[in-house]
């Protein structure tokens, strides 16, 4: 059983399990599945700075912080108890393309060749981690949700604004990955 769990899980196992999070949170306490809100609650609890957007009773939303702390623990458990020593198997075309940028280490979930404490202080590393992270936090809140809140919860509840948001996530990602990221990786 453990050997079976250690293999990478196929999409038709993982996707439905992620989808079941939606009814699980609703039935456990009327909570809408969404993760980017946790970033707002962290702002509201730690650095509200008298900004109206952060002036609300974040303690009512503390479940969301327990949830993301659980995701952190889940990551630690999966990598320590259920890890698979084989590197991620990706499309050979991607392997070849990334090799051109000096990315050859596929053993981790993040590309260690370009995302580590040393590259953080280079222009490329700064863009990949600091600028990229800023866009994730700014964009998700501006859009009112992320992949979980809009793409999964919103679409599940047939909300057309969520379809617009999800389409824009994908369009932005396609533009960045294919047209802009090659220049960043070449830095």
């Amino acid at each position, binding site marked *: 059983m453990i050997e079976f*769990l250690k293999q*990478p*899980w196929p*999409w038709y196992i993982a*996707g439905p*399990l*992620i989808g*079941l999070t*939606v*009814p699980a949170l*609703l039935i*456990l*306490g*009327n*909570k809408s599945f969404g993760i980017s*809100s946790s*970033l707002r609650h962290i*702002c509201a609890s730690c650095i509200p*700075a008298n*900004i*109206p*957007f952060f002036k*609300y009773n974040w303690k009512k939303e503390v*479940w969301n912080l*327990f*949830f993301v702390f*659980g*995701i952190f*623990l*889940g*990551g630690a*458990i*999966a990598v320590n108890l259920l890890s698979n020593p084989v590197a*991620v198997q990706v*499309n050979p*075309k991607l392997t070849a393309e*990334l090799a051109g940028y000096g990315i050859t280490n596929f053993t981790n979930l993040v590309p260690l060749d370009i*995302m580590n*404490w040393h590259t*953080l202080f280079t222009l490329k590393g700064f863009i990949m*981690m600091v600028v*990229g992270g*800023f*866009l*994730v*936090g*700014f*964009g998700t*809140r*501006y*859009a009112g949700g992320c*992949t*979980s809140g*809009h793409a999964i919860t919103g679409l599940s509840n047939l909300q057309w604004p969520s379809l617009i*948001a999800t389409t*824009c996530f994908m369009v932005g*990602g*396609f533009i960045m990955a*294919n047209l802009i990221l090659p220049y*960043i990786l070449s830095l």
Partner: protein
Amino acid sequence: MQNKINQNTDFEVRSLDAMCINESNIQHKWYHNIKYLIIGVLFGIVFVKSEVISWFRIQEMFRLQSFHMYGVIGSAVVVGMVSIWIIKRFNIKTIYGEKIEFHDKKFNKGQIYGGLLFGFGWAITGACPGPLFAQIGTGASVVIVTLLSAIAGTWFYGLWREKLPH
């Protein structure tokens, strides 16, 4: 009366651009939140084991080189959709007997501008907010910087919110 007004104002602020609004009016002790921690743990394990938090998988997705991510998100949406339909159809209550509420999402231009900006960030970092927490859990300590930067991004959105087109 005063108290009631305060509560309503709080609800108004919290509901701004948020998918997550706590609808429950029942007050619980803090340890009731442990159940959300457990769901989070299970969710984090699925994230890692299905490689959806892998930067490489996200790059494949945006280059149309693999079906994996589309399969994961697509089947998650189908399961979510059927679940919500069942909850509405059979009027399923929470474990505390409360009615499960759904709110319609209003359109604003932020979903376009913010959506595109998040798409850029997603393709660069290979992570949406959830995977950031899981990646740190797997020991990629430098992702803490990405997470702090995402928190800063959220904070600056709050600061500039009134000036941004919505």
